[in-house]
């Protein structure tokens, strides 16, 4: 069982089924624990075991679609999501995904996709990871001193609330301009398609801090956006770049959704600020791994790629 090789028809290489399944399981466990899609871990892992960045990004979108659908169903049953807000986010999200796939194809044709993926991971994960570590460390210190650990929702009005085209979202109890909603949707869809991430770890803080969405509906709503942008990205990547490996995605999905269940149970036993610190460290570690890859002299300076592909 541990030595079953399977041939991946699109990646065009033979991999150990058990290894891919365990990777799916491990990333699923982490994603369930933190309530995220786990794309920012899965895509780099696939790249590190030798799958080309293009196939990794395109196939992980499928994996995230599956795991976010499981999550969305759970939150839907608890009525812990805002359909109207999700719909408005999706307007921006689908356009962003289309733009992301277009950029992906362009970068692929000029041979700079690997670099862009590496740099984006480094910048995004480095920044987000550092912020999370600092924020959660402060929360832990506050908790030690016996102060409340809840995130302060701050003043109720910023410049965001001065923008036009306001809409009332009943479930979230917010009255906000659709411009930042579309903007956030576009951004998440865009980076998701380019980097092979669902973007939950970016979307959740954005919804909380920028749009002031209450925490009880935020994760469910973000999962709906992730589900649709990732399913759409799968179709777009398949139709334009032909890089989605169904066999790879299937093994990842089965491992991922299984691992997520155990992760969710483990996550409930840990305090939320400790959970955020762990996630922050993890995000930072992946970002650093990319930094080393970009800064250290590679052992192999040459690389051979099919024309119009990286």
């Amino acid at each position: 069982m541990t030595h079953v090789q399977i041939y991946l028809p699109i990646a065009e290489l033979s991999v150990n089924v058990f290894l891919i399944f365990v990777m799916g399981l491990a990333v699923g466990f982490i994603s369930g624990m933190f309530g995220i899609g786990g794309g920012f871990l899965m895509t780099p892992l696939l790249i590190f075991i030798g799958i080309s960045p293009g196939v990794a990004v395109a196939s992980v979108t499928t994996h995230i679609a599956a795991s976010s659908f499981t999550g969305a169903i759970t939150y839907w049953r608890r009525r812990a999501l805002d359909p109207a807000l999700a719909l408005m986010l999706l307007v921006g999200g689908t356009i962003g995904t289309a733009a992301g796939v277009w950029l992906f194809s362009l970068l692929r044709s000029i041979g700079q996709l690997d670099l862009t993926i590496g740099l984006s991971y480094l910048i995004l994960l480095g920044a987000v990871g550092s912020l999370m570590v600092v924020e959660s460390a402060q929360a832990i210190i506050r908790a030690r001193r016996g102060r409340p650990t809840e995130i302060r929702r701050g003043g109720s009005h910023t410049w965001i609330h001065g923008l036009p085209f306001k809409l009332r979202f009943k479930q979230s109890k917010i009255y906000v301009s659709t411009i930042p909603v579309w903007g956030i949707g576009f951004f998440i869809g865009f980076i998701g398609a380019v980097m092979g991430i669902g973007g939950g770890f970016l979307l959740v803080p954005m919804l909380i801090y920028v749009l002031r969405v209450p925490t009880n509906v935020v994760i469910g709503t973000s999962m709906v956006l992730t589900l649709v942008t990732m399913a759409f990205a799968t179709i777009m990547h398949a139709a334009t770049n032909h890089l989605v490996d169904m066999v790879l995605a299937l093994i990842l999905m089965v491992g991922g959704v299984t691992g997520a269940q155990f992760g969710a149970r483990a996550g409930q036993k840990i305090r939320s600020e400790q959970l955020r610190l762990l996630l922050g460290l993890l995000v930072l570690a992946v970002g650093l791994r990319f930094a080393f890859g970009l800064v250290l002299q590679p052992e192999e300076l040459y690389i051979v790629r099919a024309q119009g592909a990286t």
Partner: protein
Amino acid sequence: MMRWRLATSAVLVALGLCAAPANAERLVTSLSNYRVSIASNFTGADLVLFGTVDRDARTVARRGGYDIVVTVTGPRQTVVTWRKDRIAGIWVNAESRTFVDAPSYLAVLANRPADAIAGPELRRRLQIGLNDILLPQDIAGDVADVVRDDPFRMAFVRLRTEQGLYMERTNAVTFLTSTLFRTAIPLPADAPIGTYQVDVKLFADGTLIAREQSAFELYKAGFEQVVANAARNHGFLYGLGTSALAIFIGWLASVVFRRD
């Protein structure tokens, strides 16, 4: 007069054609398999090539014995070799060379080193060995081969060799008798699908005396075939199907693991 001369030359040509096979050796080869399928458990395969040097009573004796060079060429594809350079502190794909219609797989199998089989001029003309194979590059719209020690060419051949896709083996052809030989063509797990040309050359005393060409096909079988074809030819439907699969797996998980 003119007509007579034509007729005479036609007869001479016909005689020549008949005479040639009677004097020279003929190569007869056979592969163990002409259609190699890649299934989900494909981890590489060895194809066996058998061949014999067909002689008859009038064939001249060859004191130096025979030499065989088998060149197997996979489907051709245009590839780009990139070289990383340090730009602003990070390593970036900076320079590139486009290799036009380069073999995706190339095996040169012989019974002894190429320089012992033929002289440098003949080796270059017949492209015997990895050093003498033509690898034309697209240089600003002009397609031409470059010098043998071009760094991009060397890197390309080295990387392909490390992947097991290019190889040159000077002891891979075994003579079982003085005229019967065999060799194994190793196909790695990630050998690309398509038609592989097999070119068998027979040498004696440093000259080419016979040549035989055949081909085999590497194809994806069963489920892999369906998936690969669908992805290439019906990308949109394939994407829809893959998304539907993701939704199904996600739904299944929510049913299987439902707790409330």
